[in-house]
């Protein structure tokens, strides 16, 4: 004997999911989430790299890459949060009396909490792993294993930068670096703390009084470098700037010779 009792059956998980997605509020939220995620992604892929300084080193390339990756990775999370927020904002109850108590009154939802924890946890782990890998590749044997590495001793003093190239035995107030050769900066200060920031190289390190700190860079692309101080160092901190460039090896040799011709001190 056959009989039909389908009306009494619980909906299957697939049916429940289909019903859930087809609800008007859920559809609106999904559409909002997709649009906001797309906007964040476009921002990360196009706007951020265009804002950032020109890439003249491997380190600056890493910085741009991480900025882009993090923005794209965080876009869905931001899109989800903002989609629910924007929908709630657009759906507000107006008037002098409070809205009636909502029928949806869940105090908790374990699957939703687990999904959220897994998603945000994955984002955090991805950010950590990507950051550590890039950091490792930037710092690993950049200079120590490179026989052609150049050493530059950088000194900060209120409010000028000066450079000494020990192998070339020249003193300068601008910074020229040959492309393709790793650079080992040894940085110190004679008065207060400064922060040595060759902007287009994507590195930075404090110049501490009577202490030497180090930073490494691998210049890869020719071009101008702005050198600024990134640590408030007193009255004329804003004006503690100089310039430099990543040049070809032959241009660098020419530049060194021109300084040696003036007694080893840049005029």
């Amino acid at each position, binding site marked *: 004997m056959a009989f039909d009792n389908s009306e009494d059956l619980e909906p299957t998980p697939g049916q429940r999911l289909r019903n859930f997605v087809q609800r008007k509020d859920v559809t609106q939220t999904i559409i909002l989430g997709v649009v906001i995620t797309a906007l964040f992604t476009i921002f990360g892929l196009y706007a951020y790299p265009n804002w950032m300084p020109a890439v003249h080193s491997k380190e600056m390339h890493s910085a741009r890459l991480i900025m882009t990756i993090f923005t794209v990775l965080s876009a869905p999370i931001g899109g989800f*949060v903002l989609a629910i927020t924007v929908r709630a904002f657009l759906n507000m109850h107006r008037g002098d009396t*409070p809205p009636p108590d909502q029928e949806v009154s869940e105090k908790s*939802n374990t699957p939703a909490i687990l999904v959220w924890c897994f998603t*945000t946890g994955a984002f*955090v782990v991805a950010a950590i792993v990507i950051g550590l890998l890039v950091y490792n590749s930037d710092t690993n044997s950049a200079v120590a294993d490179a026989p052609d590495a150049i050493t530059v001793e950088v000194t900060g003093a209120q409010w000028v930068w000066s450079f000494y190239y020990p192998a070339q035995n020249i003193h300068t107030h601008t910074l020229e670096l040959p492309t393709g050769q790793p650079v080992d900066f040894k940085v110190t200060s004679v008065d207060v703390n400064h922060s040595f*920031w060759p902007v287009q190289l994507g590195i930075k390190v404090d110049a501490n009084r009577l202490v030497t700190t180090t930073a490494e860079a691998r210049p890869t692309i020719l071009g101008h470098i702005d050198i600024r101080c*990134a640590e408030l160092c007193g009255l004329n901190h804003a004006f503690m700037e100089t310039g430099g460039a990543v040049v070809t090896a032959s241009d660098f040799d020419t530049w060194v010779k021109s300084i040696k011709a003036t007694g080893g001190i840049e005029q």
Partner: protein
Amino acid sequence: MTTLAHQSEVSSPAPLPTRSLITKLNIVTGLIVGAIFCWGTYYAMRAGRDMTNEHNINKVLILSMFMWSLGFMIGIGALIGPFRWLIGKDLTPEEELYMSGQGQGMKRYFKYCTDHKVVGIQYLVAVMVLLGSGGTMAMMIRTNLATPGSHLVLPKIYNSLVGLHGITMIIAMIIVLTGPLGNFILPMMIGARGEAFPRLNATSFWLLFTAIPVLCSAWFLGGIPTGWSAYAPLSTQAGPGMNSFLVTIIIFAISTAIAGTNITTTVITMRAKGMHFNRVPIFVIGCTISVALAVPAFPTFMAAMVQTGMDRTISTGFYDANVGGSGWLYANLFWIMGHPEVYVILLPGVAALLEMVPVFTRKPLFSFPMAVAGMAGIAGMSALVWAHHMYMSGWMPALNGPFMVTTEFISFPTGLLFLVFVGTLWRSRPWLKFPMLCVYAMLWNLLVGGITGVYVSDVPLDGTLHGSMYVTAHFHYTIMGAALSGAVGAIAYWFPKLSGRMLNERASYISFWLVQIGLNVLFMGMFLVGAEGQPRRVASYAEQFAGGNFISTLGAYTVGIGMLVFLWAIIHSARKGDIAPANPWGAKTLEWTVPYPAPIENFSEDPIVTSDPYGFGKRVSK
């Protein structure tokens, strides 16, 4: 929240203890005694000293400032109790009642008053004054930065503006909620008759009060060249204005420790019967975690400043590399306080908005345990992340990796707070009211501040972002965009309880849109120039940054106008606003059962709590 409490009329005033010294003391006597102590110390110490020696100048100024604070506290009557203890006595019950402000009208706001509601209002006024002056300095900074190469203010003045704006705003934001609402509202929310240590409560406020003139004195002593981070050795070499800074920090740290201990003890020991930990309002939990975090954090800043003072007065050389000291010691001490301090500021604002979301959505708070776990997780993790501020300092590069891990991991508990917000907002129809608008604003601002925080916590990326305007924009999104939005929403939400009147809605909405649009224009402009390579704290900048800076300045003016509108709304509404009903939002927490004006001990009978405070919504079957 169900309660069995019955309300009673305000009890009749007790007879004044007319012969007691305590009735004669107030802010005026405090100022007079403080000034006598200050100038007396100044002239006594100058005698016979070589005042061309900068160490002698520093000694005289630092001690004079401390004596001002001590003199003021004696003059206002804060030490009458301890003096009596020295002779084996204490205040009489009449004096205790007098000290609680009973029957004194407006005068109690100018006295050493132990009523937590009076202290709350005192803190609120102090916060408004500090935010106003810090905001004015921000406007001056932005005006100078409107065009490249501006000489509107001299670099020396500019650097002082940057430092004093920073410390003024940090102090204001640390107390912006735990001061006014942590004192006025929090005891009522837990069904307490007051704070655990009423005299310490008043002491914490008046100590803060004495720090304000000390900080202002920096302007008359040559300013501070260091920014609010006051890095050594610049701070140890700086002029006399630096003394004002370090004394301010030491006094403020003591005040904060007292206030934090008081609020924590109150919440642990004075909750109403039946208020188990899972029934404690989330705002109370947020405030408690915040102040408990401040208790261990600020002593390190105080220690850093004590050592700065010793370097400046007796050449100890803690931070002087010449004699074996290290500026990194200062940097570590500062940031061990500095990063938890961000969450000391942020958590009360976020918790206040969590408190009101269920009220305006008429839904239960989604996953109360996750909200608590998020805040506790943030507080716990915040103690392990300080050195991310020092990636580029050259101190221990080997630790950069571990600190990158801990710093980025703090995103996880922060994410739990987002979950609670969106879980509560999900499929809701929130009531359009000004405090609810602040929830939306906070979510956007914290999202931007949080995601950009992941960027600057990454070592390779920090190589280009550290010390730039990008970092300035990031932390302003977090502290101003998120925490201040939370604070403004909280003050608006509890305004009927503070003043007995409703906040002017039209002015509130106008201020909201001005502030939020202006804030985003202001700090997006900063993100732009920061990503391009403009250092922070510069009085002048290269031509390439002109566009972003001009946009930022326009945004800053818009924020300034919006905050003025909000200030007008508060002052006007407190005087002439519509009389507020007892519970205008239909909330279920205990403070809304207390009438206005609140009786001296809030409740005539101890309330008994029988349910959680977020019992909104209709049960639905799954």
